[in-house]
């Protein structure tokens, strides 16, 4: 933490090496969050670049009120929202990517793949599709809590919404996911309902 602060203050003074180290530490999480929100590798890479550029520009204003990671998450979510608003994100892109993964997977010869692997690919596809069905706000809250392990309070701070709204969005997201994945009855404990 102390080390992080030192890097931040060096970066604020214009030290590019310090900034690179900060970016290096955060890049995987930022890419993953951008991917979770856009569903597209290409967009996620572009948006990650944009996030770090914005972070560099706003670095003089970073006072440490929020954690460095939370601050970057906020920039990422806002950048993805803007990207979404501009109409650049096409849900179809995500499906295209899923389909290309699937076709590669099938192309290797389904006969030589164990059934378990085929199942895993199918599950992956269905999970991605179910995530696509969520609204951007629901998806943001869900991925931040579930995949980025941010506590509910920190999500509220990051997204600048109330704790109650975070809980409502998360509850709604889980309910929707359960409905969309209802055909996996055994896995979701729906048997006998």
């Amino acid at each position, binding site marked *: 933490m102390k080390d992080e602060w030192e890097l931040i203050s060096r970066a604020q003074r214009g030290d590019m090496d310090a900034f690179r180290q900060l970016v290096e530490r955060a890049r995987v999480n930022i890419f993953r969050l951008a991917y979770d929100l856009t569903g597209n590798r290409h967009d996620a890479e572009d948006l990650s670049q944009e996030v770090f550029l914005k972070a560099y520009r706003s670095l003089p204003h970073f006072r440490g009120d929020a954690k460095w990671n939370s601050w970057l998450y906020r920039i990422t979510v806002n950048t993805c929202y803007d990207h979404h608003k501009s109409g650049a994100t096409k849900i179809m892109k995500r499906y295209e990517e899923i389909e290309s993964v699937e076709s590669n997977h099938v192309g290797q010869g389904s006969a030589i793949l164990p059934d378990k692997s085929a199942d895993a690919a199918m599950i*992956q596809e269905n999970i991605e599709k179910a995530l696509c069905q969520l609204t951007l706000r629901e998806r943001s809250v869900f991925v931040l809590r*579930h995949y980025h392990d941010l506590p509910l309070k920190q999500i509220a701070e990051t997204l600048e919404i109330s704790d109650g709204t975070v809980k409502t969005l998360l509850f709604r997201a889980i309910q929707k996911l359960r409905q969309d994945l209802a055909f996996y009855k055994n896995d979701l404990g729906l048997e006998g*309902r």
Partner: protein
Amino acid sequence: MNCKQFVSKIVEALYAELTPEIKQEFDAHIATCSNCRTRYKQMQETLNFMSRRKRKEPDKTTWDDSWTVIQRKIESEPPQNEPIPAEKRFKWHPARVPAWAYGIAAMFLVVAGIFIGRTFWSAKTTVQVGGNRSTFSELSAEDSVTTQALVYLGKSKNLLLGVMNVNDESYSVITLIKQQQISRRLLQQAGYFKNALDKPDQQQLKRLIHDLEIILMQLANIEIKPGVAAVEMVKRGVDQKSILFKINVEEIRSAVRESAPDKSENNKL
């Protein structure tokens, strides 16, 4: 804990964010309520299932390229305290402004235009009264003498109501002086109306202004001694000549005249 409270805490419970006390209550509830227990279990299973998702990793080569791009862009930007060159300054992107904002802006401009037009460009009628010029700012150039006379009557009525509705306790020298000043101003204008109201249908109005002139003259010439009988004399004069009643009648007549063309228009339709 009841079922409603259970629902409000379920998300925190799923991610182990409950305080120990509430967790205890929560556990006690699901131990006794089978519906809530099933619901909780299903949501937990959903989350377990979502955890099977494989996370994407950024590609190493792409990342190296990305960093080069980021670095190049940062280096090409001016330092924070230097002025930004004109070509890099904020540019207006009309496409990003929602359509409804244009509507609101247009409405705002129309309202502002009407307000400015009415405030600064409306014509003001100047009425020549004896040697003085008095401006009826509330009247436009098209207003007829009758309309001006009605405005005059309205002002006189307000003055006389002020005189009629006072009692000895509330009447002061300052009030009387002010009423006399207004009365003198109105007297100056009365002469103009007596000359201007020359049409046959304006004769009733002319007589009323003549009667009013006498009352205003009495008021203007009262000696400043509050509570003296002279004020009572003015009041009696107003009563005897039914000035206020006549002004009301004139106002009603004017209102009827104004509404008459509208009615005829409606009938045509």
